């Protein structure tokens, strides 16, 4: 076997530090003139792919992939600055119907087949939709084993051992390649894409494609009824003494 071919799909989302605003028609979150960056969980997956290579796991190629508007190029460049070898960008304009997790999974299946990848590392969820479905759906479509919410990944020969975070503890999973892994927060500490590396990444190849190239014409299946902001928190009240507190608690039904 001549080294792993890793595919890392990434998504351009509203930056984690920005407070999202709902648009006036209450149909979506305002994205115009808002700072965007790479989904933090996807940064973890890029980093993990690079660390596998640095740990001398034989890796032939790390390919970053993104589907989205033209600006998604920026995050692909960041991924390449971090250490991905090349990238593929499927252009989906903002005015076109947006991809849903199932659509992305179908698209990724085609990409995996085209690129002959044998390991796909995804973020466990994106911080905009928080769907947490794409990795699982892709595993289902491909019929590959999957390890979600990974906090440690080990590869020896063709066996992958993944420690994953589950409710109240960890779970260790062993499977053979090919495989799907989705990353959790404590997997690693992503490096910063430095200025010189971003400059160097400009020379790395970036392939532009469209959904038609993959023979896909996904129509949205989900309908967004309404988007609203969470209700504002109500302020607390001060009580004068212990009796006051107890009567207040009784009033609220807590006692």
């Amino acid at each position, binding site marked *: 076997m001549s080294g792993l071919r890793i595919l890392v799909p990434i998504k351009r989302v509203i930056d*984690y*530090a920005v407070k999202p605003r709902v648009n006036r028609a209450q149909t979506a979150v305002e994205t115009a003139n808002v700072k965007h960056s790479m989904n*933090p969980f996807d940064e973890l997956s890029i980093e993990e792919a690079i660390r596998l290579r640095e740990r001398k796991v034989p890796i032939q190629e790390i390919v970053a992939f993104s589907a989205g508007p033209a600006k998604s190029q920026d995050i692909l460049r960041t991924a390449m600055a971090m250490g991905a070898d090349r990238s593929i960008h499927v252009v989906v304009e903002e005015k076109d119907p947006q991809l849903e997790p199932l659509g992305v999974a179908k698209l990724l299946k085609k990409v995996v087949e085209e690129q002959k990848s044998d390991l796909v590392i995804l973020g466990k969820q994106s911080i905009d939709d928080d769907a947490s479905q794409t990795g699982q759906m892709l595993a289902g479509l491909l019929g590959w084993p999957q390890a979600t919410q990974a906090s440690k990944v080990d590869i020896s020969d063709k066996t992958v051992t993944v420690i994953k975070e589950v409710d109240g503890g960890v779970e260790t999973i062993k499977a053979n390649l090919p495989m799907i892994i989705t990353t959790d*927060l404590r997997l690693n*500490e*992503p490096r*910063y894409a430095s200025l*010189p590396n971003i400059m160097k990444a400009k020379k790395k190849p970036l392939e532009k494609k469209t959904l038609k190239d993959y023979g896909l014409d996904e129509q949205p299946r989900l309908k967004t009824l309404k988007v609203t902001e969470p209700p504002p928190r109500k302020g607390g009240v001060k009580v004068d003494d212990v009796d006051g507190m107890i009567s207040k608690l009784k009033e609220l039904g807590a006692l």
Partner: protein
Amino acid sequence: MAAVNQTLRHRVINIYKELLFLGREYPLGYEYYRTRLHKAFASQQHVTDEEQIRKGIERAEFVKKEIEALYYLKRYRALRQRYDKV
């Protein structure tokens, strides 16, 4: 300037540029960051001893790492607060 080692000069300029680049995401704003960075470098402009300049570059590298760590922690904490209920 002719007497000053040119490679050292380049390294100082490079690290300054890298630090400036890091400042784009500084929590208190780019302007706050840029003026302070500029001041820090300007306050060292009289240094001519090569050994001293090397020490200065080392310090700049250290600050760079600190800022990267700051960004990482800030993001990690925000995400942990949002996604880890424990």
